[in-house]
């Protein structure tokens, strides 16, 4: 088990290998379909982004509402492939990590290798468990999107597995054919 902290440094990224189990600590940013679309448009139009992508990690997640006295609701990962068409652009602009679930496109895998980034899978369908790992949550952009707004999350020992590492390895492929 490797304990890592965001923002990700090149040393950490180089050290991570497909299949590594990690505990992620620090700030991560939730982004789903619509937020990706908007961020991609902002990049294309050279507008200032709601957060600096440089070395950051995004989490494909749309939580349930928090009950009174709680930080967040259920908050597991959503399917990553829906974000594939925007991911290479984000990686080109400094993003270094993504947390989601499921396979990525060839273009995304190539971009992960090219820009030296890493793709993690969280455990899909375990949103109640992940709530314990969120220490702070605040909406920093697009509040009108409700669960699809961008949340800045402070996470502690957030469990994930490296699927695509910066060296071009893919844990899903390694698994199914070994």
């Amino acid at each position: 088990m490797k304990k890592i902290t965001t923002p990700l440094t090149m040393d950490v990224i180089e050290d991570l290998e497909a299949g590594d189990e990690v505990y992620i600590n620090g700030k991560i940013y939730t982004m789903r379909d619509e937020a990706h679309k908007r961020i991609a448009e902002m990049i294309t139009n050279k507008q200032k982004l709601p957060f600096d992508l440089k070395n950051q990690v995004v989490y494909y997640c749309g939580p349930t509402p928090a009950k009174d006295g709680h930080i967040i609701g259920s908050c597991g990962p959503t399917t990553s492939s829906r974000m594939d068409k925007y991911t290479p652009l984000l990686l080109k602009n400094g993003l270094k990590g993504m947390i989601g679930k499921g396979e990525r496109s060839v273009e995304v895998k190539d971009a992960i290798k090219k820009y030296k980034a890493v793709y993690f899978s969280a455990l899909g369908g375990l949103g109640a468990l992940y709530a314990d790992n969120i220490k702070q949550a605040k909406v920093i952009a697009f509040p009108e999107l409700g669960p699809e707004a961008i949340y800045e999350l402070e996470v502690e020992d957030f469990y994930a597995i490296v699927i695509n590492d910066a060296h071009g390895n893919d844990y899903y492929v390694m698994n199914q054919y070994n």
Partner: protein
Amino acid sequence: MRIIQEKQIIDTVAKLAIDANYYLPYDVVAVIKEFAKKERNKKAKNGLFKIIENYKKAKKGIYPLCQDTGIAVVFVEIGNNVCINGDIYRAINKGIEIGYEKGYLRKSTTEPLKRKNFGTNTPAIIHLEVVPGSKIKISLMTKGAGAENKSNIKMFTPTEDIEEIIQFVIDTVKNAGASACPPYIIGVGIGGNFETAPLLAKKALLRNIKDFNKNKEIANLEKLLLKRINELKIGAFGFGGDTTAIAVKVETMPCHIASLPVAVNIQCHSARHKTIII
């Protein structure tokens, strides 16, 4: 004629919406435990046991099992001796709206093209069926998009070999891969037409996870499909191993002489549904 008030349906549906999202059915929990014990891949085994932990955490009532609390699919069997004092569709949707609000559940229904979220998780998808009797049976299934997006239908020609149908089911699961939250429960609908085959596949997911189809031939097909799907080695969470699916449910119905529709509805491991009979 038995009269049932609209309010009773609203309250029942609201309760179903909350309960389905916080309590994983016992039969599902039991089968996941069995597979977890047998699993040989360490990471997958760990993940399978975490499903049980997640179930225990969710049933305390603070956090739903999954953040995708689904679009609500409601199956209603209404007795022909029942008279509803009110509008059943309005009652169900009101129940969903109340349940999703009170239960702190995510509202996921949206206008399809403009993508405007309605904020109520309505309208629900409602299937009404009239049956003999004086009761109403309401089953609510909270269906996440991850697994629904990977579901599929194919219109086969009638002379197609059964092996082709098996391959279609397997290819559909293969295509879902790690994306739709394996281990899966696979619902298969064979026969009917373009709208009923998927409905059969979906209804099959309401069956007890441990049962087999009463028709022996179809039961054997279910066992064969489960074996073949688990040979894919996608595994729990896509981490490899023995547990790509934990059950396959096949339902059939008659179809046109020129037709053979086959639908595959994928269900994620968080197989949330609940039934109440009024």
